[in-house]
């Protein structure tokens, strides 16, 4: 597989704050590559380094073999960018917004009318193409932003928080569009803090925290690496010596995220469920027990000691 993006030991500071701290990763052609992490993890900064909107303070960044800052023109011709905040001309319609982009980005202006028609159709915006963008729903605006980023037929698309503020139906529509484009050979770099989105959309993930790589791999690999099931107990009152109880059943990574809740990881939880119930019932009233395969949140929790949603 060909690497379309290569990052080695990239560093970016904002004053004293180290936003990206020695980041290294590669992205292969045709991948949907996810940057997963809580707010402030350095996802958007990483995308800005890759698009050339920001310069790095150290390290090496290459996109399609070019330095995004030193050879910005070569890079910008071949990338599309959908920023986190939808930046459209709200008083113009979809077609006018796309034409605006075309004049700035498309090398072949004669092909633009056909591409606009095609993209408005594939993103299901054809019927509303003459309506002002101001009247669009959040999902429609994101779909239009994706269509705009694809208009000049880029090789790599950077999609910052693809479905932020979009309803469930809209989310699935956007994921479908990304998958369609991926199948036609496009590479996507997606930043998200939505585990469901990362799981559903990405071939490979880079989990970030405080500008550093926590772990990397495909969603399945990351979850499998954990190798343990996640047990969540709800008791009344809360378990006082939870560590002792967890140790007794061979569990680890114990946490009590809220009163009355105890969470830990253990191998083959199904076989141990009876022992766990008996141990708890000695001193507490067991309200519920839940055994789950690990999620990406569990992966993050395992590596950082806190939940992804806690930021």
């Amino acid at each position, binding site marked *: 597989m060909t690497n379309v993006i290569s990052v080695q030991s990239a560093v970016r500071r904002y004053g004293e704050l180290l936003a990206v701290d020695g980041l290294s990763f590669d992205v292969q052609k045709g991948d949907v590559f996810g940057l997963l992490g809580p707010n402030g993890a350095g996802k958007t900064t990483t995308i800005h380094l890759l698009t050339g909107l920001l*310069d790095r303070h*150290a390290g090496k960044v290459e996109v399609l073999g070019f330095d995004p800052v030193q050879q910005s023109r070569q890079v910008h011709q071949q990338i599309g960018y959908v920023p986190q905040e939808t930046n459209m001309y709200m008083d113009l319609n979809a077609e006018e917004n796309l034409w605006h982009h*075309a004049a700035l980005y498309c090398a072949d202006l004669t092909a633009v009318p056909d591409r606009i028609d095609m993209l408005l159709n594939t993103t299901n915006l054809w019927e509303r193409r003459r309506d002002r963008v101001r009247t669009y729903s959040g999902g429609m605006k994101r779909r239009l932003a994706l269509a705009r980023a694809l208009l000049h037929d880029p090789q790599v698309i950077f999609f910052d928080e693809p479905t932020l503020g979009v309803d469930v139906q809209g989310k699935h529509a956007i994921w479908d569009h990304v998958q369609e484009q991926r199948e036609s050979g496009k590479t996507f770099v997606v930043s998200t803090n939505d585990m469901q989105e990362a799981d559903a959309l990405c071939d490979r993930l880079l989990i970030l925290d405080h500008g550093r790589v926590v772990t990397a791999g495909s969603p399945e690999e990351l979850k499998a690496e954990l190798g343990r099931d996640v047990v969540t107990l709800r008791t009344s009152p809360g378990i006082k010596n939870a560590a002792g109880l967890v140790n007794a059943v061979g569990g680890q990574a114990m946490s009590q995220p809220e009163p009355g809740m105890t969470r830990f990881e253990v191998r083959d939880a199904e076989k141990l469920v009876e022992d766990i119930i008996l141990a708890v019932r000695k001193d507490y009233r067991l309200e519920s027990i839940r055994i789950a395969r690990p999620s990406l949140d569990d992966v993050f929790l395992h590596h950082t000691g806190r939940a992804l949603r806690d930021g």
Partner: protein
Amino acid sequence: MMKRLLALLRNELVMTRTTLSIHLLGFFQPALMFSLMAFVLVMPTFELYVARSSLPLGESLVEAMVQVNSPIGDAYIEPLLVEWQQGDDIPGGQVVELAISDGMPTAVQHFDLIDSNIVKNYRNRLTSAGLILWEEELGRAAIQIEERPLLPVDVPYNVYFGMGMLPLAAWIGASFVAAFLSAQEFEFKTIQEYRLAPAHWGLVLGARLLRLSLTGLLSSMVLMITLYVFEQAWPSPLGLALGMLVLMGLIGACVGTSAALVLKQTLPSFVIALASAFFTWIMGGAFGLPAGFGGVYEAVSRWVPNSYAVRALFPLYYPIEPSHPNSYLILFVFATAAVIATILIYRKSVLSVEEVRQ
């Protein structure tokens, strides 16, 4: 390249819809201002009241005053006999009373709160009328006054006033729209589209400045037509006037764009555009050619492009021979400097990557 430029210009025209109200303000505000100021504030004729008196001097003084009128234009001051005596209210702010003082026929001017310039005009008219009477008395021993005007006809002041506003209209049309268009790119974050665009920045900025210059031209043409409708004054040759107004529009566009690129907010950028338009208008010969005022005003006006625009326009509106080729050259230099400054600011505000590599 031409195809790209046309596509960018098409974008610029479509963007009019995002700033419709400011376009309307830019197009019609100068013409509206001219209409209001020219026909409400600028009075074409003032009445000069002379109190009816038992002395025979009264009527001959009024006749002499009428005789003083400019032979090539409107009366400007129209003397009228009125019933008035001391203690009455002063009609229209001024009245001339005739009396005998120390055995001499004397004209006494009574003034209320009126503009000092008008006072001078009334006084001049009275003095000139006095001279005419004196001349009649003394015959060849008196001084004759002969008027040799530059112009064959006395052009109404409104023509100058409207002509002086043409550069302002071009500036307003271009700078107001420039400030709003460019600042809202930052507010809507659409500026990011320009930051990553592979199209050459020179074409992108060029298309915007060209469109804004033409917006300024259109704005000044609305005023030009208004001036024609009210005063039948039209520049000749028209092409020279339009060329000069395009340059003024370009300078205004650069000021508005630069303000927006630096301030990144519509309201402060608009205030800068507004202040610059009125400062350059007033300091650049708004009410008369700067050379006629002298002193600090003239010194400052040398650094204001409007002064040269007014000088260049003057022979196009007034039937006088000498044109001012230097004015066009200086305006071109102003416009070039403005474009260079805008390029530098554009590259810093839009294209520069934050912080250089260490």
